């Protein structure tokens, strides 16, 4: 069959346009460097740490930052730099685990609630009930009830952040399910699971990714709060929250004990928030705050 020449040649495709735009976003790059540094510290803890994080040297207590101990030592004579990098591993690990659990559970709940309208009411009311509690109070209550450990901190923080994730996913699913390509997939015989997996999920992902970046930041912060209050991984495990908790009594004589982990938390959260802002600007530009 003869068909008239229908189509003008296309411009050559640009590869990875989203990545290009991300790497042109200055704040995103700063965030990437900050957070990337923390990840490198956490992953390379064994290589970076000059001492074993739990090794106590009583003659070396309260050494200020300087020779031998780059960031100083704490009240037990432990090397703060070593504790900081091993603490990064635990704090970031807990944050990542929370993001993973929250991302999966929140996505499933959000997809179900947004797509199958019959389960929307019960699911979202349950989420509302969880969201009615202040986040840290709820996490504290759950962690206290389960007992202090890293796994329990992950459980507690996931319970807190799943409702927020589910809401975000549900909101985008409600938009995507009305798209005509979803109707098309139904018309061409697609099952609901197929449509959810092939159409609804990929098109709802952008706000979720942005949100998960912020949840990572909240989780790092909340985990230090839990540790600080004594319901995180128990001492002498080095987490940033534990380190601050132990250092707070000596803050006037030895400011460095609490300050370094505090700075680490700050930079990590700042880095993640910058990453999230950059991702939001590029992936989900509708949410961008209008800048004068």
């Amino acid at each position: 069959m003869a068909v008239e020449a229908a189509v003008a040649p296309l411009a050559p495709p640009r590869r990875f346009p989203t990545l290009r735009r991300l790497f042109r976003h200055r704040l995103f790059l700063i965030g990437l460097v900050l957070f990337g540094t923390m990840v490198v510290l956490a992953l390379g803890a064994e290589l970076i740490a000059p001492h074993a994080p739990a090794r106590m040297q009583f003659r070396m207590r309260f050494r200020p930052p300087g020779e031998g101990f780059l960031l100083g030592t704490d009240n037990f004579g432990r090397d703060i730099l070593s504790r900081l990098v091993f603490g990064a591993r635990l704090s970031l690990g807990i944050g990542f685990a929370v993001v993973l659990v929250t991302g999966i559970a929140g996505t499933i709940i959000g997809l179900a609630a947004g797509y199958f309208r019959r389960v929307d009411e019960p699911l979202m009311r349950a989420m509302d009930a969880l969201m009615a509690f202040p986040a840290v109070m709820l996490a504290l209550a759950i962690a206290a009830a389960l007992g202090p450990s890293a796994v329990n901190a992950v459980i507690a923080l996931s319970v807190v952040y799943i409702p927020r994730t589910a809401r975000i996913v549900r909101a985008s699913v409600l938009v995507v399910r009305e798209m005509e390509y979803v109707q098309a997939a139904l018309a061409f015989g697609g099952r609901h699971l197929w449509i959810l997996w092939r159409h609804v999920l990929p098109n709802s992902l952008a706000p979720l990714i942005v949100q998960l970046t912020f949840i990572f930041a909240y989780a790092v912060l909340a985990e230090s709060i839990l540790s600080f209050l004594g319901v995180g991984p128990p001492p002498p495990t080095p987490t940033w929250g534990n380190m601050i908790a132990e250092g707070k009594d000596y803050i006037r004589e030895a400011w460095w004990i609490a300050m370094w982990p505090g700075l680490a938390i700050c930079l990590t959260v700042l880095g993640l928030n910058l990453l999230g802002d950059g991702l939001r600007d590029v992936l989900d530009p509708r949410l961008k705050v209008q800048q004068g």
Partner: protein
Amino acid sequence: MPPDAPLLAAQNLAKHYKVRGGGVLRAVDGVDLTVRAGDTHALVGESGCGKTTLGRLILRLVEPTTGSIRFRGEDLLALKPEAMRRMRRHLSVIFQDPYGSLDPRMTVAEIVGEPLRIFGQGTRAERRARVEALLAQVGLTPAHATRHPHEFSGGQRQRIGIARALALEPDLVVCDEPVSALDVSIQAQIINLLQDLQQSHGLTYLFVAHDLSVVRHIADRVSVMYLGRVVEEAPKAALFAAPRHPYTRALLAAVPQPKPGAPPPVPLAGEVPSPLNPPSGCRFRTRCPVAVARCAEDDPALRELAAGHRVACHLAEA
């Protein structure tokens, strides 16, 4: 299925939406529709008359409130979900909006091949060959297969939608205003493509449109809809030569004539009444230039005035 049975026969099809505040919106209100295999059956009417909803009802993308649909000799509305899903390979659709109807995250190959994957047809390599053949049939090239929809113009996207619609060799294609979102210069190309494909694939079209010049070009039969009802149904030639229903006459009179010196079109007075509260008796009586008292009382049924020419008007005469 008897040999001369229609491919599609809908009877008394209706879709009523409950509206907040207790009203009932009669989007489609008791429509009979018969489409013979190989025909292009056009549904025309103003926006809001229910023609798109009727198309979605036939596709069972919207569940009818009442009525029956027979397709390929089977009662579509009686099919269980899985049986209906399998039936969908014979029933296809081209959407109006070439932007919204293609998933922006998929490549052209994934979009066109999706129906094949859904029905598990062929191996990966066979599907790819089939997709390339389909693209060639709609005037695209295999090089386009790896591109995303946003890289194409509206007309090109509609070609992608058409290729997808043909992937499973369907019997009936519901064309929901397939060209009304396109530039006039592109419309003719797409219409010609649809006609070529109809011949080569033996397709039947249910062609929803509001542009009468398009309908005049492509249709075999035409159903004219007004406020959720069919008011006139006839072969194209008869309808355009001798419209019987006053609404059809008004619709045809409103088409601008390209002849110099032709009288300017006479628009109908008034607005389309709300489908929430349609007029008593004949739906069209509030705007009808020839309405009489009886029209407010009796709801006119479709009557066959000539062979295959049916009109829902008390005053129409053979």
